[in-house]
C-alpha cells in the first residue's frame, strides 16, 4: 500500500481510541485549544476557506462558502448539524470516523460551530449505527466533563452544547433538508427549494450549516496544521486527504485514506489488492449507487471531483463498487432499484411510481420473462423521471438503469433471448 500518513483515520484500530485520555495522549483537542484561544471565529472560517475544503458528502460544495451564508447578526439562532446519516450504498467511511474517533467528530463540531457562532449543534447519526452512537454519547459525556463542551469552554467565554440525534432508518435523510425534517420530528420528506441552502432556512427555519461527517472532521486538522498544509495535498481543485470506500469484487475491500486524485487503477490494484485471481474488471460504480456505472476504460481517471465527472460519472461519496465478470448487470440494476424503491419517500410522482415501476420491470427481465420492448420501456421510464423529481433521490434512481443499459445492453438482451439469468451470482432475492 502506498505511503500516506493517515490524517482522519490516524486513530483507527488504536486501542480504546474512543476514550478521551487516549485521544488526548495522541494530540487530541489541541486543535480546539488553538482554535478557541488563539483564533477568532472569522479566522477559523478563513483557514477553512483557504484550505479549499470541499464537501465529502457528494456534491463537493466548498464548506466555507456554506458557512459564509450564515448571517453575521449573532442574535439570530443558528445551528451546525453534522450529517452522519451515512446510507449511500457502498459508503462506510463515516462509520469508521464515528466508531473509532468520536472525539475527532466532537472537535469538528466545536470548531465549526465556533466559526459560525452556533451555541447548540447536533450530530445526526444514522440510527442503525448503535455502536457509533454509544461511543459518541460516551465521548460527549467525557468532553463535557473535561470542559470542552458546555459553558465557557477553555475559559474563552464561548458556550456550546452538543447533542447526538439518532435517525430511525431512512436513506432520504441523508438529503440535508430531509435530515432537518427528521431532526424536527417529522417524516423525512425533503423540503421545497428555494431557499437552496439550509443556511438561509434550516433547523426550525433558522440558519443552519449541514456538513458531512468526513468534511467536518477535516476542520480540526486544518485548524491545527494550517490551510497551506491541507491545500498541499490533493489535486488542483480537490484538496486534502480523502477516504475512499472500496467494496465488491476486490481482494482487500476497506476504507483507504489517500490524497485526492489517486487513479482508480491505483485504488484497485495498489490499495485494495486487485481483483480475485482469474477475474477481469467488468464495471465500476465510482461514487455510490447514484453514480453512473463506468467500465474498465476509466481505470486511469483521477479520483477527484473533476476527474470522475470528466469520465461521465461522479465522485459522490467516493464509494467505489467493483464488479468483475461474474456480475449480472441486470441483477446489479435490479438490486439498486430494490434499494431506491425501498427508500423513496413517496412524495413526488416520478420517484414514487418510477422506482416502483422500474423495479417491477427489472425483476421480470432478470427472471427471464422480459421482452426487447421492456428494455426500451425502461429507457422511456428513465426519461420520464429525468429532471422531473422533487429531489435528487429520484434523479439518482434512474442512473443505474440507464447507464447499465447503455453500457451493458448485451446483458439485458441475453436475459430476453435465453429466458433466464445467464449468471450464477444472485444479486436479488
Amino acid at each position, binding site marked *: 500500500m502506498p505511503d500516506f500518513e493517515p490524517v482522519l483515520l490516524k486513530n483507527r484500530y488504536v486501542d480504546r481510541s474512543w476514550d478521551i485520555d487516549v485521544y488526548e495522549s495522541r494530540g487530541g483537542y489541541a486543535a480546539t485549544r488553538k482554535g478557541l484561544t488563539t483564533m477568532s471565529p472569522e479566522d477559523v472560517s478563513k483557514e477553512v476557506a483557504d484550505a479549499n475544503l470541499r464537501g465529502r458528502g457528494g456534491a463537493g460544495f466548498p464548506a466555507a462558502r456554506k458557512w459564509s451564508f450564515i448571517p453575521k447578526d449573532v442574535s439570530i439562532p443558528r445551528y451546525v448539524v453534522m450529517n452522519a446519516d451515512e446510507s449511500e450504498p457502498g459508503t462506510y467511511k463515516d462509520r469508521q470516523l464515528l466508531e473509532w474517533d468520536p472525539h475527532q467528530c466532537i472537535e469538528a463540531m466545536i470548531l465549526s460551530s465556533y466559526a459560525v457562532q452556533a451555541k447548540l449543534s447536533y450530530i445526526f447519526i444514522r440510527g442503525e449505527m448503535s455502536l457509533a452512537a454509544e461511543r459518541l454519547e460516551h465521548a460527549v459525556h467525557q468532553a463535557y466533563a473535561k470542559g470542552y463542551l458546555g459553558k465557557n469552554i477553555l475559559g474563552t467565554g464561548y458556550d456550546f452544547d452538543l447533542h447526538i440525534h439518532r435517525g430511525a432508518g*431512512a436513506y432520504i435523510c441523508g438529503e440535508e433538508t430531509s435530515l432537518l425534517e427528521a431532526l424536527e420530528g417529522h*417524516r423525512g420528506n425533503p423540503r*421545497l427549494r428555494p431557499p437552496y441552502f439550509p443556511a438561509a432556512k434550516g433547523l426550525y427555519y433558522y440558519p443552519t450549516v449541514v456538513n458531512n461527517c468526513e468534511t467536518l472532521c477535516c476542520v480540526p486538522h486544518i485548524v491545527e496544521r494550517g490551510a497551506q498544509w491541507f491545500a498541499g495535498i490533493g489535486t488542483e481543485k480537490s484538496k486534502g486527504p480523502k477516504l475512499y470506500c472500496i467494496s465488491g469484487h476486490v481482494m482487500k475491500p476497506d476504507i483507504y485514506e489517500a490524497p485526492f486524485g489517486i487513479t482508480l487503477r491505483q485504488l484497485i490494484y495498489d490499495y485494495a489488492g486487485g481483483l480475485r485471481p482469474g477475474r477481469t474488471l467488468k464495471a465500476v460504480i465510482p461514487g455510490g449507487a447514484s453514480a453512473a456505472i463506468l467500465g474498465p476504460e476509466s481505470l486511469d481517471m483521477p479520483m477527484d471531483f473533476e476527474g470522475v465527472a470528466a469520465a461521465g460519472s461522479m465522485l459522490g461519496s467516493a464509494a467505489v463498487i467493483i464488479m468483475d465478470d461474474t456480475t449480472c448487470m441486470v441483477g446489479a440494476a435490479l438490486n439498486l432499484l430494490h434499494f431506491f*424503491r*425501498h*427508500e*423513496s*419517500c*413517496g*412524495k*413526488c*410522482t*416520478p420517484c*414514487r*411510481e*418510477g*422506482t*416502483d*415501476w422500474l423495479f*417491477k*420491470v427489472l425483476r*421480470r427481465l432478470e427472471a427471464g420473462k422480459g421482452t426487447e420492448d421492456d428494455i426500451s*420501456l425502461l429507457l*422511456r421510464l428513465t*426519461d*420520464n*423521471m429525468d*429532471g*422531473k*423529481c*422533487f429531489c435528487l433521490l429520484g434523479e439518482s434512481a434512474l442512473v443505474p438503469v440507464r447507464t447499465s443499459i447503455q453500457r451493458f445492453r448485451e446483458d439485458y438482451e441475453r436475459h430476453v433471448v435465453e429466458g433466464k439469468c445467464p449468471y450464477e451470482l444472485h444479486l436479488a432475492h
Partner: protein
Amino acid sequence: MTETTPKVETVNVTIDGQTIAVPKGSLLIEACRALDIDVPFFCWHPHMSPFGACRQCLVKVEKMPKPVASCTTQVADGMVVYASTDEVKQWREGIVGFLLANHPLECPTCDKGGECDLQNISFKHGPRHSLFRENKRHFIDYDMGPTVVRDMDRCIQCQRCIRFGLEWSGDHGIEFFGRGAATNIGTFARGPFLSKFSGNVTEVCPVGALTSEPFRLKARPWEMRSASVVCPHCAVGCNLTANTRQNELLRITGRENVQVNVCWTCDKGKFGVDFVNSDRRLKTPFYRRGDRLVPASWPEALTEVARRFQEIREADGPGAIGFIGSQKASNEDVFMFQRLAREGVGTANIDHRMGDTLPASLIPGTGLPLNDIARAKTIVLFAADVREETPVVWLRIHNAQLKGAKVIVIDERGSEADAFAQQSVRYRPGGETSFLRLLTAAVAQAAAGGSPPSEGDGAGVSVETLTQLANALKGGFVLLAGPRVAAKPDSAEIVRALWGLADAAPGARFGLLHLNNNTRGAYDMGAVPDHGPGWQQITHPGLNTAQMLQAAADGKLKALYVLGSDLVSSFPDAALVKKALETVPFLVVQDILTSEMSRQADVVLPGLSFAEREGTYTNLEGRIQASVKAVEPLGGGRPDWEICAALLAALGVAPGVLNVEDVTRQIAEAVPEYENAVPDRLPAEGALEVDERTTLAAPPPMGHAAAEGSAALPLILLTGPVLFDGGPLTTDTAAFSELEPSGYIDLAEPDAASAGIADGDMVTVSSEFGVVTVPAKVRGRVEPGTAFMPLKATGFRSNTLTSVTRTVQRVRIDKAQ
C-alpha cells in the same frame, strides 16, 4: 364597514408568447391560469401553500436547465415560459402515465367519476394507452368514520387532505403512513377520522380516494343540478352549492367566496342538511279543535290567526300580543314579521333574541370583514369558542396564524383553540367587565410607555398575566367577542368595555361573532322592541323575549306568535318557557319542523327550509348574501314573508308585496345599509353593510333582576353552543353524534376527584331549577369550581338547570347511582 385592501406590486412574465403583469410573488401556475393557459395539476390548490409533489404542472422556463414545477416557482420579472410545447406535453404525458400505472381505473363504481381531476387530466393530457404490464398494488381499506370513505388504491398521494388539516383546520387528523410506493393515508390506530371539518377533504381530493360517506353512491355529478345557497347554520354565512336531483337535496359542497369561507365549510354545514327532507317536516297548516291539532287549509289557518288577534287586540289592547323570531329566517321574512307586529297588530312587543340582552344600539359597527381578521397580526378571541360556534372563522384564523398572526384566547373556560394560542388567559365567570377594565388600563399604560398595572385580581387574573397581555397587544389587534357575550346578563356593559379596550390601543378593531345565520339581519330588520328597521328608535319600546315570556307566564300576554325560534331548547330558562307556553291563551308557531312547541300551539303555520326558497341573509361581518331556491317545497309550506304578508292583509294592512323581490326592495328603502341588497345590484360575493358605530342613545339596561345562585351549590355552571348540538336542525344527521356526542358535562379534575367521578362516569347535575343526568368529561378544559355543559345537547337540556334570574348559575354534581 368596508374591507381594507393592501396595494400590490406587479412583475411581467411571458408565457407562450403572451405577456402579462401579475402581482409580485405570484406563482407561475397562477400566471398561466390568468392567461387561460391550461396547466394540469393535482397537488396544487389555490388556497393552500405551494407543495410541488405531483409534478403534473411542469413547464419550461428559459435559462432553467430542468423542467420547472409551475406551482412552486414564483414569477420573476421578465421570465419567459413555455407551457404548451410538444416537449412540455410529453413531460405531462409521462407524469400522467406514472399516476395511472397503479390506479385501479374503477371509474364505473367510483363516486368521483364525472368530477375527477385524474379522469379529466388523463383524458386531455395522458398517454393514449398504458405501458404498465405489472400487477397493480392494492391496499386494504378500513372504516374511516361517519363522514369519509377511504379507498386507498385510488390515491395519488397529492397530500391535499393532509395539508388541509395542517394549513386550515389545524387538527391534523389524517397523515401519510408508510413511504414510497406504500405511502397511504391513515388515521391513528385505524380509527375514525373525527374532525369538525372532515368533509372538506372529500372536496380537495382530486380523485376518489376520500369520498363522502353520506353521499356514497347516491348520484352522478352530471345528473344533479346546482344551486348557490348560503349555509343555514351559524353566522359565518358560508357560501354553499346545493346539489339536487329530482327535487331531492343530495349533497352540499363548499362554494368559493374568498371573502367569506374561501371554499371551505364545517361538517355541520356540509352534512347537517338532513332536516330539509326530515320526516318531522310540517307540510300543512294545523289549528286546534278542542284539544287536538287538526290539519287546516291555508285560508282557514290564516283566518283563525287574524280573528283571534283582532279579538285579543280589542279586549286587551295590542300590547297583549307578542312576537318572537327569528335568528334563522331570512331578512325578507323578519322584515315582514316585524311589519306584521308593528303595522298589522300595532304592538312593539317583538324580539328575536333568546334571553340575551344586548341592546340593538350596540350592534352597528361590530361587523368585521373576515379578510381583515385574516390579515391581522394579533387576533384576540374573547369568550369566543370559534371552533364550536363559528367554525369557519377558526379556519381563517388558523390559516392566518401559519402566516404569522398571533392568537390570544381570553375566556372563562378552555376550548380546542387553546392548543393553538400563543397565550391563553382565564377570567373568573362574571368578572368580564372588571377584567376588561383592568386590561384596558394596562394596554393604555403600555401604549403610553407607562408602568405596569398594580392591581390585577379583579377577575382572577394576575398582574403578570395582565402585563404580558398588554405587551402582546401593543402592536394593534383584532378583538373578537363570541356569542356567549350577548347571552350574559350584563352584555351591554361587556360590549362597552370591549369597545373601550379596542379604543385604548391604536390600530385595534373590535367585532362581534354572532350565533346564527341571520342574527345580524334580525337586528338590522328591527326585530327588537326598541328599534325598527334601519335603527329607527322606538319611542315606547315593547317587551323583549324574556319579558314577553314572563308576561305570558303571568297571564298578562294573551297571544304569542313564534317564528322559527326554538324556545324550548334554546332559551336559557326552560321553566319559564314551559309556564309561558302553557299559560298563554293563543300560541301561533310558524316553523318547518314539528317540535314540543308546535304540539302546544293553537295554530301551526308551516314555513320553508332554506333550500326551498330564496332570500337574503346577513352574516357576522354584516355581509348581505343572497341564497337561491334549490328544490321545490317538500309539502304545503309557504315562505315566512308570504305568510306574514297574508296575515297583514287579513288584518287590513296592504302588504304591497307580490314576490320576495318586492320585500327586498322594501327593505332597501327602509334600511339605508341595504340599498345595494336588491337582486340586480347585489354582487356575487355579497355586499358588506356600510355602517359605523352609532351614537344612538343607549336604552336603559335590559338585564334582569339577577342574583348570585345559592352558595350551597358549589360549582358555577357555564353553558354555551357547540357545533354538533342536539338542536332541531341537527338531530336528523346521524353522523354528528358519532363525530362528537354533545351530551356531557365538562368537569375540572379536582372537582371530579372530590365527588369521586372519573372520566365517562354518569353524574347528576342539580340546580335549584332542575336535575339532569349526563356523562362526565374530565379533560382539563374547565377551571376548578366551574363546569361546562353544551346548550341544546343530545339527550338532555341544560336550560332546565338555568334561569334568566341568575348572573351565574350554581350547581352541584353527584355520581349517578
